[in-house]
């Protein structure tokens, strides 16, 4: 993955930039010693790393605005950072940038159960938003796998999803408002406790803009009453095709499970060896979870059982109690760890129409043989959001490049069948140069215009999302 050459003129001014930042921030909020900035050299796409010029860790919206004002005046690029869990390189620094970490801003500002919302500082972690309201029987729905660590700021930037978004939607569907600091330091409030924007839906375009339009310092989030209970079933099939058809039939039947997860044989085997969840050794496995009171769950599961049995599964397993429910989820939840035990892996995130599932899985299998790299598939089947995990060895020269080439082919396939490059991780640097597969130059131009409006100098996270060649003239300024 290529990154633009850092601007030497900016690097040369490092002492002046650090001094200017120290003038507006407390001493402990500016880091510029190389041994300390190293902690910020990468995010969860750890194959790529680069030490930034400096790191700032502001504690308030005013301090964020101050940092941005300084950087804007001095022409220094800024890379915003939540918790650094991006799998797409969304928080990867450049050598000429200042990282703006929002992690110290993690307070709950307001909980309002009558209007079903919570207002938090955006450095707060996803799971601790639910933590703040669960005693009252509420939760925050989007649940990315990194929810223990990932920050709301990053969730808003990437429009994060999770396993349960089939029913509850992704971040954009659960976001009511933000406090946004623009690159020039201007602070604006967008949205609020009401359910509709008075003019253009700016909130809608800020969510998922990968930290390129502004820095979100506070967010107003929808909270929902927790369902009375939830219960998963596990269904095994001897063909991906049949498992795909079963998913389609369940969706069409009108039952809305909160999650339908899919694992293929390589993933099942790896997981079984690692976590010993007791999964059947079969071609494809579905985990379907429904919610409600015990009687409501029984009613839905009876329907799901009937649909599943009509597809002749090799196994249909209902969780009789909490312990069995945990075992059903155990393998799925340890899938990434299990694959990581075998080798390094790259996790893709393309989405496809559910109807294309069998074809896409077959093609991935064929490509796996062509590239000579193993791949396991674990994904959110209900919404077609795939997560192929390609195994490679980072210590073998050329392996990463081969893995990336394989990944690119899979993502092109996703677009070809009517899907997209990324369902919930974001473009970052990882999919940046594939954007032309999905979008025409006009489509990209329309998106870049939006950045022109919010960040005319293209200083915020500039080397992300858009192919470097497409954004070059704008970044040159």
């Amino acid at each position: 993955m290529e990154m633009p050459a850092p601007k030497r003129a900016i690097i040369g001014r490092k002492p002046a930039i650090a001094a200017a930042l120290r003038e507006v921030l407390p001493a402990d909020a500016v880091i510029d010693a190389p041994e300390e900035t190293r902690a910020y050299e990468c995010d969860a796409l750890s194959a790529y790393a680069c030490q930034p010029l400096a790191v700032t860790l502001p504690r308030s919206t005013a301090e964020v605005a101050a940092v941005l004002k300084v950087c804007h005046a001095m022409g220094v690029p800024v890379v915003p950072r939540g918790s650094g869990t991006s799998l797409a390189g969304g928080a990867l620094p450049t050598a000429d940038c200042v990282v703006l970490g929002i992690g110290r801003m993690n307070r709950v500002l307001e909980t309002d159960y009558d209007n079903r919302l919570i207002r938090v500082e955006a450095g707060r972690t996803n799971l601790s938003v639910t933590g703040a309201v669960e005693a009252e029987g509420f939760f925050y729905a989007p649940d990315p796998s990194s929810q223990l660590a990932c920050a709301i700021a990053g969730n808003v930037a990437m429009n994060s999803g999770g396993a349960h978004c089939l029913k509850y939607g992704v971040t954009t569907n659960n976001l009511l408002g933000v406090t946004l600091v623009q690159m020039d330091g201007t602070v604006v409030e967008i949205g609020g406790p009401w359910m509709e924007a008075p003019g253009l839906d700016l909130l809608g375009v800020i969510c998922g803009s990968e930290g390129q339009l502004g820095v979100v310092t506070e967010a107003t989030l929808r909270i929902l009453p927790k369902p009375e209970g939830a219960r998963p079933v596990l269904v095994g099939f001897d063909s991906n095709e049949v498992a795909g058809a079963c998913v389609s039939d369940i969706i069409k039947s009108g039952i809305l499970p909160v999650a339908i997860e899919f694992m293929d044989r390589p993933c099942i085997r790896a997981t079984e060896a690692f976590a010993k969840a007791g999964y059947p050794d079969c071609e494809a496995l579905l985990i379907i979870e429904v919610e409600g009171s015990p009687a409501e769950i029984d009613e839905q599961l009876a329907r799901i059982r009937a649909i599943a049995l009509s597809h002749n599964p090799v196994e249909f397993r209902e969780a009789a109690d909490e312990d069995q429910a945990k075992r059903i989820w155990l393998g799925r939840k340890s899938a990434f760890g299990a694959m990581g035990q075998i080798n390094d892996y790259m996790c893709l995130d393309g989405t496809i129409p559910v109807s294309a599932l069998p074809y896409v899985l077959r093609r991935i299998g064929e490509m796996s043989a062509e590239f000579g790299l193993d791949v396991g598939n674990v994904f959110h089947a209900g919404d077609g959001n795939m997560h192929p995990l390609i195994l490679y060895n980072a210590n073998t020269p050329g392996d990463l490049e081969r893995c990336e080439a394989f990944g690119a082919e899979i993502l092109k396939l996703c677009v070809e069948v009517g899907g997209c490059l990324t369902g919930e991780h974001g473009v970052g640097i990882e999919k940046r140069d594939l954007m032309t597969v999905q979008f025409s130059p006009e489509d990209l131009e329309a998106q870049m215009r939006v950045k022109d409006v919010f960040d005319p100098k293209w200083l915020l996270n500039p080397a992300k999302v858009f192919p470097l060649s497409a954004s070059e003239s704008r970044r040159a300024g």
Partner: protein
Amino acid sequence: MRPVSEDELSEMLRGAGGGPFRLRGGGTRAIGRMAGEVLDCSGLGGVRLYEPGALTLVVGAGTALAEVEVLLAAERQRLAFEVPDLRGLLGRAGVSTMGGVVAANASGPRRVQSGACRDSLLGVRFVDGAGMAIRNGGRVMKNVTGYDLVKLMAGSRGRLGVLTEVSLRVQAMPEVEVTLVGARAAGAGLAALRGALQSPFDVSGAAFDRGRALIRVEGMEGSVRYRAQELRRRLGGDWALCEGAESAAIWAGVRDVAALVGSLGSIWRLVVTPTAAEGIVARLGGGTAVIDWGGGLLWLETPPGQAEAVRAAVAGQGHATLMRPAPGDEDVPALPPEPPGLVALSDALRARFDPRQLFAA
């Protein structure tokens, strides 16, 4: 002008000498002063793709809403966001189109459960003011590839470009719907709606209409019975249960604001912080109001000349749109003023997408 393809529309706009144009789907939802040449989008229709097993629908923007509803009903599916039919209220005839629905982000009572039109919208194609055809989003449920111009276009009322195609997530029709109906004063009614929305019983409608608190649950038979029972117990007081066609009629009335059809005053649509609803209604004289979204949406009738009072009443708590001016209110701007900090951003976006102000009407 009545283009019948995106290409033709592009060419027309590229060659257009000047504006403004009045974008028109079926002419059922436009509000405010309308000036300029009509750009009739009803020729841009046609179902492009419908996959019931994937809950996805792609149609040309000129496709009639009614056609979509019939198509979906044949598979026992529907649009989740329960599109209001405001023809009665606004005194319009005409055939509502999907492009118009999306451009107005038209969303009914199920907003509280399934979100607004924008939340069901998966993708758009549109032509901007320079005649450039742009695609954003797609047809899959989860998509974070590039900026979300889909949301930006929803509710943009044609000010950034002309929608030519929309992709939507659809939902299965429930087996059963039941509505709890309770005669209440406004305060007690709104409290009941809040209680229902705070319960785990997955309420799909929470409205207050003509002295009655209305709470809807939908889904599988056993589940609906159970939830209706639990809600009754939890909320206390007398609740009648309506179901089937009777329940559907109640919600059509809320959705289409039947209570105010035929009234003579100015009709306002207020989107507010739900807990502020009661105070705002009282402050504005306590006339007939239809309250939906658990308090978040208010439909009010006022005598002419009340625009300032209405907008002052919602200041800091939401915003007010003048949907139908009574004689005397014709010069009142229909759309609410944008928040001061955002005007510059909105104006700059419009200037980028519509540099010649073709869609300024």
